[in-house]
């Protein structure tokens, strides 16, 4: 035996590698390992480096080479857009209540559809569903939050009949007033309310309330998306969750009025 070791001493690293490699490969290829990682992390990293890194950065902190991008709106105001900092684990576009992690489908939805009025493009055509799945896992791994918190259930949205009716929008105008949406979004819905200039996000950056007349809600402008936006709030920003009020009925009135402000009434159904 001693002779064997002596003879093949030079080969020892190779033997070691042979012994270790099944364990290492298993770590990478098992569907879920001890840390909840999947082999997709590998593909995810590749996709991230090719598609996401330029804005979201090597460390996922939103400080990629692009840094801040600016866009002008038709009212002349300039919006500064910073890429999402994945290390914090907070996401605006969720189907879950305020303070909850997004669902996997929420993240996949943003990757696939992109974000309106920002520079986040759609990846439906450029990435396969496997690649989108993989990069989602890679993005999740930037934050401790998935390890620390339990997931929440998604809110179910059931659109009633009549959301595109003038009666709904008329009632919604009252809800807009009562819920004091105008404090930030303004009396005409152009994002110039009394509080509009004082808003900062959780990264300390100035943010602007939505100008409804741009006609494009960031997460998509369907009635369901309008409903879920004010119901869940946009975590990390000044937009709070209206989860306690108004009533379910009035929520849809508010959706109707919002769509009217966005001049999307005809497209509501």
């Amino acid at each position: 035996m001693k002779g064997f070791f002596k003879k093949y001493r030079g080969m020892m690293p190779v033997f070691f590698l042979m012994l270790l490699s099944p364990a290492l490969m298993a770590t990478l290829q098992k569907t879920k390992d001890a840390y909840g990682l999947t082999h997709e992390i590998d593909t995810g990293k590749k996709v991230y480096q090719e598609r996401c890194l330029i804005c979201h950065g090597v460390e996922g902190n939103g400080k990629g080479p692009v840094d801040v991008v600016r866009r002008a709106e038709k009212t002349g105001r300039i919006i500064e857009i910073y890429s999402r900092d994945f290390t914090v684990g907070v996401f605006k576009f969720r189907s879950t209540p305020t303070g909850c992690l997004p669902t996997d489908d929420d993240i996949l939805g943003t990757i696939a559809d992109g974000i309106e009025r920002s520079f986040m493009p759609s990846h439906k055509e450029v990435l396969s569903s496997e690649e989108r799945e993989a990069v989602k896992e890679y993005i999740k791994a930037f934050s401790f939050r998935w390890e620390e918190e339990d997931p929440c259930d998604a809110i179910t949205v059931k659109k009633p009949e009549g959301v595109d009716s003038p009666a709904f929008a008329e009632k919604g105008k009252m809800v807009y007033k009562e819920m004091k949406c105008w404090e930030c979004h303004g009396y005409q819905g152009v994002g110039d309310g009394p509080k509009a200039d004082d808003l900062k996000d959780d990264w300390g950056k100035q943010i602007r309330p939505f100008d409804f007349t741009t006609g494009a809600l960031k997460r998509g402008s369907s009635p369901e998306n309008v409903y879920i936006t004010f119901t869940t709030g946009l975590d990390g920003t000044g937009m709070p969750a209206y989860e306690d009020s108004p009533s379910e009925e009035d929520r849809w009135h508010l959706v109707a009025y919002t769509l009217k402000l966005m001049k999307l009434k005809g497209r509501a159904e």
Partner: protein
Amino acid sequence: MKKILVFTLAVSLLIPAAAFAKRVKYEAVEVTNGGTISGKVSTTEKVKDPVISINVKAKETSEDAELERKTCITIPGGQQAMMYLVSGANEVKNVLVTIENVKKGKAAPQKDLEINNYRCRFEPLVGISYVKSKYIIKNSDPLLHNTNFGKMLKGGVKRAVFNLALPYKDQVIKKKNRVAGLIHVKCDAHPWMRAYVYSSRHPYVAITDAKGNFEIKDLLPGKYTVKFWHEGFEEVVKEIEVNGGGVSKLNATFTKTRKPAFMD
């Protein structure tokens, strides 16, 4: 051997560091004959409590603006910050005293924390909450307030805990406490409003009284790291040993002030 190291290193680099995080565990046990830490927090310099100036912007009706002015402005020009509540003997009120490395001890009480939006400030300014108990968020003002909880992370960044709209007077929302840590509370509609909540998995947290005194009881014997946190002072961290049935005295002195975010 070198090859293995290189390979292992390469593999480990593929996985972001966050993936290795684990949940912090706290073990609740029966504590008999526990020890106590008690002491006083002071400041070396006499500091003056600043006044927050409040400028209410025009609204659609002058009544609306007047209502906000009447509700929010409590002294000429604004509000007293109530940040530096320091006694004649330089003792500091509202210091959060927390034990950083406690892994085992008594179970945390089931005690809800009420946060009231009253006259455009949060009451209390500093509070303690326990994971799995409830937050009771109340709006006593006839104005829109939002109560935005953010866990304070390293580097001044916050992680949203929840952000609730309270458009009505006397509206009350109950929320389960799901997140441990030091939490900053703000109202985006009134940027000067702030509160701090220490959300704990264990009962070993205290807030100093007007004389700067605090007491933390029923600790298992051992060495502990105690942190003294205040919004307007640089924090102080101290080590102390606790013996069964004994009282360990621990005083802390702040030597440096700092400017909290709401003062910007």
